[in-house]
C-alpha cells in the first residue's frame, strides 16, 4: 500500500510505518552537503569578522592621528553591511545546523503532523526564551562572585573576570555583627518549615482521603470552597489573619506562620486529585479484611500516594521557606532567615555584592529541592486538573 501523508484510507496499523519512513536523502550524501554549506557559512562569518576587525583598527589609528581621515574606506554603510552580514550568517548557520541535526540524528523519532521547519522554529524560539529566562538567575550568581570594582564598572560585564567569594565572606561578617546570631534565623526558618510541613501533610492528607474516596453529605460543597480558596493569597487574608492571630494571642510567635500553613488549600487540592486515581477496590478489599478507616488510610493509602505527599512537602517547604512573616512577627530573635536577608538586601549600594550573595543563597534552596524531586512532582501534577 502506498502511504501518502494525510490519505484518509490508511489503516490505523499503518500509522507506525509512516512514522518510521526514512529521510528522503541518504545519510552519506546529506552529510557531504551539510559539510559544504556549513563550511561556506563559516567562511562568510570569518571573512566579515576579519573585515570588521580591520575597520576597527583603522578607526583607532584615525583617532590616534596616525592615519588620515580619508584612509577610512567609504562610510558607515560598510560597517553596517559587514555587521548585518555577519549576524545573518551566524543565524543561518545556527538554523542550518539545527536542521542537519534533526535530519541526521533523529529521522526515526519524528512524529507525523510536524513539519521540519516548524520544528526548527520551535527550537529556535525555545532556545531564545530559555536563555532570557535563565539570564537573570545567571546574572545574580555571576554578580555574587564579582569583586567590588567589577560590580561598578562601565561597561558592565555579565561574567566576572576575577572570581571571588568575598561577597559571601562579607555576608557572614555582616551577619556575625548583628546582635542576633545568624544561626538563630536559620533555626527559626527550619523550625517553621519543618513543623508547618509536617502538620500540613498529616492534616491535609487525612481530609483529602475522605474527600476523594467517600461520598458523604457536604463533601462536594466543602471541596468547591477549597478550590475557591486557592485564590485567597496571603495578601487578601493578611489583615483579618492579623486580627484573628491577635485574638488568639499568637502574634509574634512562630505559630502565626505555622498554623495557616497547615490548612494550605493547594496541598489538599493536589492530594485529593491524586487520591482519586487510586482504585476503590483496594479500599473495599481492606474493609472486608476488617481494617478500620484509620488503618486503611495510614497503611494502605499513604504508601501508594508517595509522589503526592512528596509534592505536598515541596510546595509547603517552598512556601514556608520564602515566608518572611513580616506582618505577624516583630521580635528580631524570632524573625525568619528570608526576613533577615531582606534586611541586608535593603542596605543599599554599599551592600550590592552582599545582596547578590543573599539572593543566590535564598534561591538555591527551592530550586535544588525542585530539581531533586521533579519526577514525583510531575507525576502528581498529572492529576491536578479541575473537573467540571
Amino acid at each position, binding site marked *: 500500500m502506498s502511504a501518502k501523508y494525510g490519505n484518509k484510507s*490508511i489503516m490505523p496499523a499503518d500509522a507506525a510505518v509512516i512514522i518510521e519512513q526514512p529521510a528522503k536523502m541518504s545519510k552519506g550524501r546529506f552529510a557531504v552537503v551539510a559539510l559544504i554549506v556549513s563550511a561556506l557559512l563559516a567562511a562568510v562569518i570569518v571573512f566579515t569578522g576579519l573585515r570588521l576587525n580591520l575597520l576597527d583598527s583603522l578607526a583607532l589609528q584615525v583617532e590616534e592621528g596616525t592615519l588620515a581621515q580619508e584612509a577610512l574606506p567609504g562610510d558607515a554603510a560598510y560597517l553596517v553591511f559587514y555587521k548585518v552580514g555577519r549576524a545573518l550568517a551566524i543565524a543561518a548557520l545556527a538554523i542550518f545546523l539545527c536542521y542537519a541535526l534533526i535530519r541526521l540524528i533523529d529521522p526515526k523519532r519524528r512524529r507525523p*503532523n510536524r513539519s521540519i521547519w516548524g520544528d526548527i522554529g520551535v527550537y529556535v524560539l525555545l532556545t531564545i526564551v530559555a536563555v532570557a529566562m535563565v539570564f537573570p538567575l545567571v546574572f545574580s550568581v555571576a554578580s555574587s562572585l564579582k569583586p567590588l570594582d567589577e560590580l561598578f564598572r562601565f561597561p558592565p560585564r555579565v561574567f566576572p573576570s576575577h572570581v571571588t567569594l568575598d561577597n559571601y565572606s562579607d555576608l557572614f561578617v555582616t551577619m556575625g555583627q548583628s546582635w542576633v546570631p545568624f544561626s538563630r534565623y536559620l533555626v527559626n526558618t527550619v523550625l517553621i518549615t519543618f513543623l508547618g510541613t509536617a502538620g500540613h501533610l498529616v492534616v491535609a492528607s487525612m481530609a483529602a482521603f475522605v474527600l476523594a474516596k467517600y461520598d458523604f453529605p457536604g463533601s462536594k460543597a466543602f471541596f468547591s470552597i477549597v478550590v475557591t480558596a486557592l485564590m*485567597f493569597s496571603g495578601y487578601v487574608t493578611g*489583615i483579618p489573619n492579623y486580627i484573628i492571630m491577635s485574638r488568639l494571642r499568637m502574634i509574634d510567635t512562630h505559630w502565626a506562620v505555622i498554623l495557616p500553613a497547615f490548612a494550605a488549600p493547594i496541598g489538599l487540592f493536589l492530594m485529593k486529585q491524586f487520591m482519586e486515581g487510586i482504585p476503590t477496590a483496594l479500599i473495599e478489599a481492606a474493609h472486608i479484611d476488617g481494617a478500620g478507616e484509620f488503618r486503611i488510610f495510614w497503611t494502605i493509602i499513604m504508601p501508594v500516594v508517595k509522589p503526592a505527599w512528596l509534592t505536598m512537602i515541596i510546595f509547603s517547604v517552598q512556601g514556608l521557606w520564602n515566608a518572611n512573616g513580616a506582618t505577624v512577627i516583630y521580635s528580631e530573635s524570632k524573625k525568619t532567615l528570608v526576613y533577615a536577608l531582606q534586611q541586608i538586601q535593603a542596605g543599599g549600594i554599599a551592600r550590592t555584592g552582599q545582596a547578590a550573595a543573599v539572593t543566590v543563597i535564598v534561591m538555591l534552596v527551592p530550586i535544588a529541592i525542585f530539581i531533586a524531586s521533579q519526577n514525583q512532582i510531575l507525576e502528581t501534577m498529572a492529576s491536578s486538573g479541575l473537573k467540571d
Partner: protein
Amino acid sequence: MKSTLGKYVKLKQDNFRYGVEKAKRMKVCYLFLLPYAILFFAFYILPIITSIYYSFTYYNILEPPKFIGLQNYINLILQDQVFLTAVKNTFVIAVITGPIGYILSFLFAWFINELPRWLRTLAVVVFYAPSIAANAFVIFLYIFRGDVYGYLNSFLMQFGFIDAPVLWLTDPKTIMPVLIVVILWMSMGTGFLSFVAGLQGVDKKMYEAGYVDGIRNRWQELYYITLPSMKPMLLFGAVMSITQAFNVCDVPRALAGYPSTDYAARTIVTHLFDYGFSRFEMGYASSIATVLFLVMILCNKAIQSMLRKVGT
C-alpha cells in the same frame, strides 16, 4: 398549587433526613475532615467573613470597631484618587500578564513536550525556576538600575540607542513596562507544571487516530486533540494565573519602591498593605480586600465558563 408545594417541602425534608442518616453512618469521614476543616475555617474562611464585616466599620485596632455602613466603599470610589490609580495599574498588569503568562505557560509546556527526556527535564527547571526562586527578582534592580552601571542602560548606551541613562524604576512612564516584564518572567508557575504533566498524560493513541483521520499539522492537532484532553489542567492553570495576576505586590514593592514615584507602581494589594500595616486603618483596608476578592471571584467565574467552550 398547595399540594405541589407540600410535595416539594416533603421531598426536601426526606432528602434532608436521608442526608442526616447518611452523615450518621459516615461519622468517621467527618472525623478525618475535622482537623483540616477547623484550621481551614479559622485561617481561610473566617478571614474573608471578618474582612467583609470590618469593611463596614471604622477600625484602627486600638478602639473597638465602629459601624459606619458603606462609608469605606464610598470613600474608596469617590475620594481615594490613589485607589483608582491602584485599580488601573492592577488591571493593566492582570490583563496583560494574566492571559500572556497563561498562554506562554501552555505554549512552552507544549513545545518541550516532544523533547527527549533529559532535555525536557532541563527545560522544565529553566522555565519553572524563576517562579520559585524566592525573591530572586531583586536582581532586576541591578539590571534596570537608573545609572550607567545598570546593565540595560550601559548596554543600550554602548550601542548608541540612548545617550543618557534611563531611570527605568523611577520614571512613571517606564515603571509599568518593567514590572510587566519581570512579572511575565515569573509567570510560569504551578500552572506550567500542571500543563507539562498533563501533556505527558494525553493518550498517544489519540494522536495516531487523529493522524489517520486527516489532521495535517501541529496546530490542528493542538486544537482538535490536545486542548480538549487538557481541559481540566487548563481550568486549574486559569485559577492559578488569576491568583497570580491580581495579587501583584512583592515585585512592585521591591523594584519600584514603596511608595513608588507618583504611585505609578501602586497596585490594589500594595494599597491594602499601606492602609493595613502602615496606617492601621483596618476597616478601610478590609474594604479594599473585599473589593479585590470579589473581582477575583467574578474573573474566575467568567474565565471558567469561557474555557469550558474550548475545543468542543
